């Protein structure tokens, strides 16, 4: 297929930034607008750009792992955070929260809810990647 150098280069420039943005959205989601679903959508949009620039092969190269692994790992994370609290005598999906003071970075909140959200993120990206792979051949 014919590739446009300008589009190609622009996509490469934008892609990493978009991924970083999507991960920022994922983590910021707990206190500011964002979350796993939106983060996953932004990452998927970045992936879609890669597809538009270079087709399915480029998407596969970018992912490095088979696309079907992403929803699987995502489901494991999401269901895992739902089930693990049971082992500690809590109700399913009870979330823990820890706060540390880190040098330079300041106060850091870590919530297990973020792990759950990361699962959602992976599922969304994975579903889009699967659709692109399936339809884009």
């Amino acid at each position, binding site marked *: 297929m014919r590739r446009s150098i300008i589009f190609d280069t622009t996509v490469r420039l934008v892609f990493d930034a978009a991924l970083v943005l999507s991960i920022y959205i994922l983590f910021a989601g707990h*206190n500011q607008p*964002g979350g796993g*679903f939106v983060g996953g*959508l932004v990452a998927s*949009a970045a992936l879609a750009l890669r597809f538009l620039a270079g087709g399915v092969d480029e998407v596969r190269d970018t992912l490095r792992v088979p696309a079907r692994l992403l929803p699987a790992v*995502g489901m494991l994370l999401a269901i895992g955070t739902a089930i693990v*609290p049971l082992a500690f005598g809590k109700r399913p999906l009870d979330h823990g929260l820890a706060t540390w003071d880190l040098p330079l970075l300041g106060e850091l909140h870590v919530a297990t809810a973020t792990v759950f959200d990361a699962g959602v993120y992976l599922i969304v990206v994975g579903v889009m990647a699967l659709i692109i792979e*399936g339809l884009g051949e």
Partner: protein
Amino acid sequence: MLPSLLLLHAVLGVCALAGARRFGRRALLVGAIAPAVTLSWAALSARGILDGTPRTSTATWVPGLGLSIDFRVDAFSLVMVLLVSGIGLAILAYAGNYMGPDRSTVGRLAGLLVLFAGAMTGVVVADSLLTLYLCWELTSVTSYLLIGLEDETAEARAAARHALIVTVGGGLSMLAGFVLLGLEAGTFSLSGLLADPPSGTVTSVALVLVLVGAFTKSAQYPFHAWLPRAMVAPTPISGFLHSAAMVKAGIYLIARFAPAFAEVGPWRPLVVGVGLFTMLAGGLRALRPFDLKQLLAFGTISQLGFLVVLMGIGHPAVTAAGVAVLIAHALFKSALFLVVGIVDRTCGTRDIRELPELGAGWGPVRFVAIAASASMAAVPLLAGFIAKEQAYAALLDGGTGDRLVLVGIVAGSVLTVAYSARLLTAILRPDLLIAPDRPRSTSTAAPSVAFWAPAVVLGALSVILGVLPRLWSGLVDEAARALDAAASAHLLLWHGFNPALLLSAVTLGLGAALFLLREPVARLQERLAPPVDGTDVFEGILDRVVRLAGWTSRTTQAGSLPLYLGIILSLTFLVPVLALLIGGAGPIRPESFARPIHWPIAALILIGAVATTIARRRFAAVLLLGSAGYGMALLFVAQGAPDLALTQFSVETLFVVVFLLVLRRLPDRFDHEPPRRDAVLRIGASVIVGVGSVLLFLAATGSRVVEGISGEMSRLAEPIGGGRNIVNVILVDIRGFDTVGEVTVLAAAAIGVVALLAGRKRVEEP
């Protein structure tokens, strides 16, 4: 100790399965460790348990849901554990010589048998209804796999499916009964439930549901047909699961429940009616088959009916007799199966019409056949006689009802004597059962010592227990007392001349007469036989269900997208509007749509939507639809919902990309113009649905009667969710279960997409 015993079964079973091909016959040795250890444990703890202190163990499972795994071994459970592990051991020893040379089949058999033995042990030691149910269904599943062990034959697969559907279906009914009982009693502990049994209508319904489970498992009419079919399994499996162990699970459950529930509602009439009918019908059917295993299968059904009556009637003395019959039956029936297996393997057939006479070297097998058949027919000096005497005596001592039941039992026992005689004759002198002009042949091959040794052990036990009843009198007594504190048993060889002895003599005499008159009886049965049997009925029902499912799919999934859309849209519109018309609408609040910023956005959405419908090119339509979507996102921005807006923008963008992927495969333009009538219909439907939705939302926002939950959620977000983004806290915490459900749907949809596309690829590239 108990949980580790069950765990040992699971681990060894899985090991044997995993290494089936490599281990071959050695898998039987590996697997045998589990029942051997269980048997030793049971023997070592027998003294303490028989003194009246049950062994218990409790392991917490899911504390958050209040679930725990409780085990309790009292004397009756001990009897069951001894039978399961003891006979299991004999079966594993026997299977090595029975099975053919295929290594992986032997290995799989060993693994599955051990897994089954573990599940069965779990059933009889569980003290929580839910643990019992879990193990119960595990026995059904392992039974399914074992019946279908030789899965290359269609017959085996169909038989396995039949057994699975019937027993698991019964199990589900039982689960519903357990849940009702647990809720009525306020406890899911078996001992707690039986100590303080509830009563009333709900309990009656629950008991019927539980009984359905027990009847299916123990092959009672009208669910019996799976058991004769299961005889396609290799004989070690039939001898273990389908005579001595698994089919006793229903008996076990009935025995446990009867003392507490026999007086409640329909229990006694149901149990006695079904049991007696099964005993008679199974006994009659056992007089007909020429296949020895079929004969044994119907005999087993008949004996199970007998046990259901004894255990279910709920009178202490009869229950005690039931325990004795249970033990005697397990011993003689498994021995008989082993004998039939030996004959089948060595002579190459188990069809009465083709059996040769057994020649030299068959002495031990003959001994087992005689001992076990005689025990089955309740001939004196054998375990079966001791047990049946108890049953006769106990029922004679009861009231009028019990004596009526006794009449049925005696009739069933007469049939038992007749088919026992038929079985024994078939093994010893098959020529007597068929036309005498057939040339007599004699088997030259004889089985090896290792092959018949397990059968001889089981057969000898029938004799030893029959001659020395005090060996097991204490065990039966304690086991009966564990079921019903008022029960007691005193097994004796000689009770003196009494009515029970007379009945035994009458039974034997009538049975012998029935056997001698076998030719006229067979002709009569031939004439009276119903045109269909249970298997036909089951397959007929299954066939109807499949056809009904096909019809439903064809009718509801016509394959027309406009039709689907039309139904979905008109329903989403009609149902709420009907509610609105019936319930009336509240005041309309104009402030929700009257801000100036809304007007240009609404115009954008409108233009996008209308333009989409009149676009000629697909690509243009997609872009226009996207612009309507972006308009929605702008609306969210205007309303101060950045989360929603961000999500909507991303979704719209991706939506366009996915559409582009699909469009590559479609023509550039919409070339198909719908007929005018259709177009009018569609426009009409769109307008109605659109206007209706607007009215609905206006009415909905105005008809709030209590304060919304959003205030409460924003108050809760920070303290319980630890986040300041309410939307996100709702998604991951407050309504986290919803999100789990939604992402599961998403992942399932992805699998669906992949599967659909993969299927299409296969069609394209054959």
